[in-house]
């Protein structure tokens, strides 16, 4: 398993256009909750899908939660048909999606993101108000459970 920064650095190096969302973005904003997978929203343009698919194929990406051996083709076409995927890879678990509930498609996600630099790696993360909006829109119990912490962070940062 690779560290989150290793996964992110590899995505950046491969020139994949993406925004970090979910638990890792929340953690980078200061949330204390542990997370086990990296969630990204990717640009669904054809060349970006190609780059992402090549990288994920190289990481031996397979579907999380299903039996091994089911037919699964990791290529750009798969992102077109099923744009949301929960994957397990040699570098750790990764969730990929082309839009974020409560925020919108990639362009809207990018517009509501902030650039962060860790070491010598620069990448985009969803900003805190948009993260709160996304958690609220998804309305899943596990997302709603994170809302109090994110709202408190928002309020504390605003002071």
């Amino acid at each position, binding site marked *: *398993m690779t*560290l*989150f*920064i290793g996964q992110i650095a590899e995505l950046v190096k491969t020139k994949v256009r993406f925004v970090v969302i979910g*638990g*890792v973005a929340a*953690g*980078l*904003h*200061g*949330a*204390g909750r*542990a*997370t*086990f997978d990296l969630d990204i929203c990717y640009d669904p343009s054809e060349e970006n899908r190609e780059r992402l698919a090549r990288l994920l194929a190289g990481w031996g990406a397979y*579907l*999380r*939660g*299903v039996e091994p051996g*089911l*037919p*699964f*083709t990791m290529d750009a076409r*798969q992102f077109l*048909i*099923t744009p*949301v*995927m*929960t994957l397990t890879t040699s570098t*750790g678990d990764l*969730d990929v999606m082309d839009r974020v509930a409560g925020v919108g498609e990639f362009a809207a996600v990018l517009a509501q993101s902030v650039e*962060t*630099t*860790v*070491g010598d790696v620069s990448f985009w993360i969803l900003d805190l108000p948009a993260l709160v909006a996304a958690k609220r829109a*998804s*309305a*899943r*119990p*596990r997302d*709603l459970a994170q*809302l*109090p*912490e994110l*709202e*408190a*962070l*928002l*309020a*504390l*940062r605003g002071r």
Partner: protein
Amino acid sequence: MTLGQFATAVGAPKRWVQNAFQVLGLPAVYTEPLACRLAFARAVKAACGMPLRRVFPIAEDALARWPTHKTWELQDPDGSVRVVLQLERFLSDYAVRLSLSRTFYAEKRRGRPRKRTPRGVALAKWYGVDLTLLVESLKRTPEERLRQLDEAREFFAHARVVR
């Protein structure tokens, strides 16, 4: 499987699934093999307009052809039209949706939100969130925060292996 998980695996809205069950006269029992059959019927119906009632009964035989056959074909009686379905592609798409239904899908909280739920810091206090931890976290750099997430991920990965 719940109706929501079933619909995710089929790749259809819940309402479509309920209507399909009605049309096919199926009891509301949601299983993964049935989801695969219904997804197959939906794919063929979407591609060539074949009614669900006609395509659903042949879905099981068609799916049983995998992996010895890579495709499934259906020809009309006079031989002028032939439908070819790439089984590997179909099953790959279905496997992605099945994965989502098992790992990503969760029922949404129902009902109206409470009117008097506090917001911001008050909400966090109401839930019992330790604000001192958040204040400390805000003093760290993004690099330190990401390192902390990595340490937690590594710790729990090892904990899972031991268990």
